[in-house]
């Protein structure tokens, strides 16, 4: 890379326009935008399914939808939010920001990049069209446990192939990100000089490559069990349904860190900017991220304490799970120490990042409670679990994505978003997300099971509160969509640095970031 010549500057500037531009683009910024718009669409789509669930649970008894459709909603909501909203949003952020942050002109494999995005709409068309099938969409939960999932009707192969496509898309995206980070950093940017968002994505990309193929294997086994006479999970043929849970969660636990490590990265960029101080404990942040990634491979069975595991297994998975609190705690304390005596201001990205630190930690603590094997016998498959993982995924991952969008939106569009509306969006979201999910801890501890459309009457009040919160939260996101739309159309011009305390290569390029950046690699001091 050291001998860059001007011959590289003759980029094809005869862009196709309209739809063809987006179908054929190999530009990392265009593809990043596609990912982000796609994930916002899926976020609203999957969110509306959550509102169907909350509307049904507003009162005990069966009001609005039949139980079969309710099950389809819980299943599809989870699949769409995990694979359609959160993961593509982070991949979109990586596409936009990783080349800018490491000083690379584009992703390493631009055509592959185009393909890994365009597989996603196909995957979600396959999955989404099952809603129109006579037997309905998959309804056995996103975890697809056999034997129940094998009773899915015509939607079953569509579910499996959709998961395959999502997996291929993620793995291709991950390969691209790793190659970009390893081979295309600007001269002088050593690994331990990379911004933390890049670090967390490097580790996340390795996690994706290590576990998405295992999920692909697990769902392929389901497919052959149903149609080709194998008996991986069928007791009748000598298989074991619990085996599926072991394989699934070997994927599933690293998967939850795939959804949260990039969020850690985003927050580690934003908090120093608005505290006007460098990140506290950079090296320990990197090592903590790597430790979390490693530990994620040895804790999977804490999702299945109730399958009848031997005591030794329960103890091992209980303690290894609790161990994760140590590196996670390192991160939380580092963020707090970064803010310590900083000249803090509270623009929308910072508000979302602060809410992330606070509310993600609540989700982490309920996770510690769930890790206690004897207590988990009570919590398992209750609304306490639902509250736990929504705390880490909604005010955790989703808030970090929103923080990232507000933080980098001026760089993407060249305009400042409407700060008043941004703050309104924050406060509506932050309050309603707690109104939605906090009461679910209480009903869960009292024994309300998840994934059931009806419940005992003593849970009515908390469920009604939760439903009200969910509707406020859901409709607040339309405001988010409006803010992004109006920011893309115009507004106050953004400066190159955008934020007073911002530091990093992405702030050295003009706002909006031109189509081609860093054709000549920047020099890192």
């Amino acid at each position: 890379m050291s001998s860059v010549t001007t011959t590289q500057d003759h980029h094809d500037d005869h862009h196709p326009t309209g739809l063809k531009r987006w179908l054929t683009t190999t530009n990392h910024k265009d593809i990043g935008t596609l990912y982000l718009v796609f994930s916002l669409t899926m976020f609203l789509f999957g969110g509306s399914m959550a509102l169907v669930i909350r509307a049904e649970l507003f009162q005990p008894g069966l009001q609005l939808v039949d139980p079969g459709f309710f099950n389809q909603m819980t299943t599809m909501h989870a699949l769409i939010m995990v694979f359609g909203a959160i993961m593509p949003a982070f991949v979109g952020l990586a596409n936009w920001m990783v080349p800018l942050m490491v000083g690379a002109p584009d992703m390493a494999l631009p055509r592959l990049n185009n393909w890994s995005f365009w597989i996603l709409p196909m995957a979600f068309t396959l999955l989404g069209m099952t809603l129109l099938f006579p037997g309905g969409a998959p309804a056995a939960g996103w975890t697809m446990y056999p034997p129940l999932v094998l009773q899915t009707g015509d939607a079953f192969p569509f579910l499996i192939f959709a998961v395959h496509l999502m997996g291929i898309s993620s793995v291709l995206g991950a390969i691209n990100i790793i190659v970009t980070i390893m081979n295309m950093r600007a001269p002088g940017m050593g690994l331990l000089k990379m911004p933390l968002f890049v670090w967390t994505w490097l580790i996340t990309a390795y996690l994706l490559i290590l576990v998405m193929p295992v999920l692909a294997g697990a769902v392929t086994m389901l497919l052959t069990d149903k149609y080709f006479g194998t008996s991986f999970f069928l007791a009748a043929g000598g298989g074991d349904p619990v085996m599926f849970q072991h394989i699934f969660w070997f994927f599933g636990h690293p998967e939850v860190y795939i959804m949260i490590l990039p969020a850690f990265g985003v927050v580690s960029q934003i908090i120093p900017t608005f505290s006007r101080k460098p990140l506290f404990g950079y090296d320990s942040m990197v090592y903590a991220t790597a430790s979390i990634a490693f530990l994620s491979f040895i804790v999977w069975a804490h999702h299945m304490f109730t399958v009848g595991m031997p005591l030794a297994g329960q103890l091992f998975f209980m303690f290894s799970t609790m161990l994760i609190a140590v590196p996670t705690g390192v991160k939380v304390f580092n963020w707090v120490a970064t803010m310590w005596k900083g000249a803090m201001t509270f623009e929308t990205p910072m508000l979302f990042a602060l809410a992330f630190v606070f509310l993600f930690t609540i989700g982490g603590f309920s996770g510690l409670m769930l890790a206690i094997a004897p207590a988990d016998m009570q919590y398992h498959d209750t609304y306490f679990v639902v509250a736990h993982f929504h705390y880490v995924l909604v005010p955790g991952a989703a808030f970090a994505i929103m923080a990232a969008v507000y933080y980098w939106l001026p760089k993407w569009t060249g305009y400042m978003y409407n700060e008043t509306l941004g703050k309104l969006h924050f406060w509506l979201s932050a309050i309603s997300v707690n109104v939605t999910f906090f009461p679910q801890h209480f009903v869960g501890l009292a024994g309300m099971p998840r994934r059931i459309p009806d419940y005992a009457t003593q849970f009515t009040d908390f469920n009604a509160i939760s439903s009200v919160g969910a509707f406020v939260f859901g409709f607040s996101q339309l405001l988010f969509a409006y803010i992004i739309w109006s920011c893309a159309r115009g507004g106050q011009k953004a400066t190159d640095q955008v934020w007073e305390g911002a530091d990093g290569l992405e702030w050295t390029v003009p706002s909006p970031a031109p189509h081609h950046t860093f054709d000549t690699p920047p020099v890192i001091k």
Partner: protein
Amino acid sequence: MKDGQGNRLLVGKLVLLTLGMFAFGYALVPLYDVFCEVTGIGDRTGTPTAATYLPTEADLDRVVEIEFVASVNQGAPWEFRPAVSRMQVHPGKLYQTTFFARNTASDELVGQAVPSVAPGQANRYFQKTECFCFTEQRFEAGEGRDMPVVFFIDPELPDHLETVTLSYTFFAQDRVAAR
């Protein structure tokens, strides 16, 4: 260009890693069994295969209730039920009961019953010395018959267990028969 070569090499390694992990997903199936065998944890087969013997002394002071449950897998064409739904037994004493099964289909079927003991803790104390679940059962069209189970409860059964449930699921055995 040198850079392109570096990319290809790394991409190649990562693709290999991906394929390796796909294979590893399948390898997990036998690996879990190997792991349980080597470490001795897991108890996946229920009871050790060593010969079971009837204790010389029955614990006549203690009464354990045994419940029998019969179910049929996913619409398989069987009629299947226990002769009695519950029994009071003394640990250490041998008992016999029967389950009745009838093939309601119009052609010959092979069935296999898969047992399960609840709570799981009681599994190793529930000893079956003779059971129709040990072998495949062949039924002519419309044929029905009683099938015996001979069992005893190990007197070591933990005290807090007062009820033990033995359930059988009857599978139509086309897949196993085809193997």
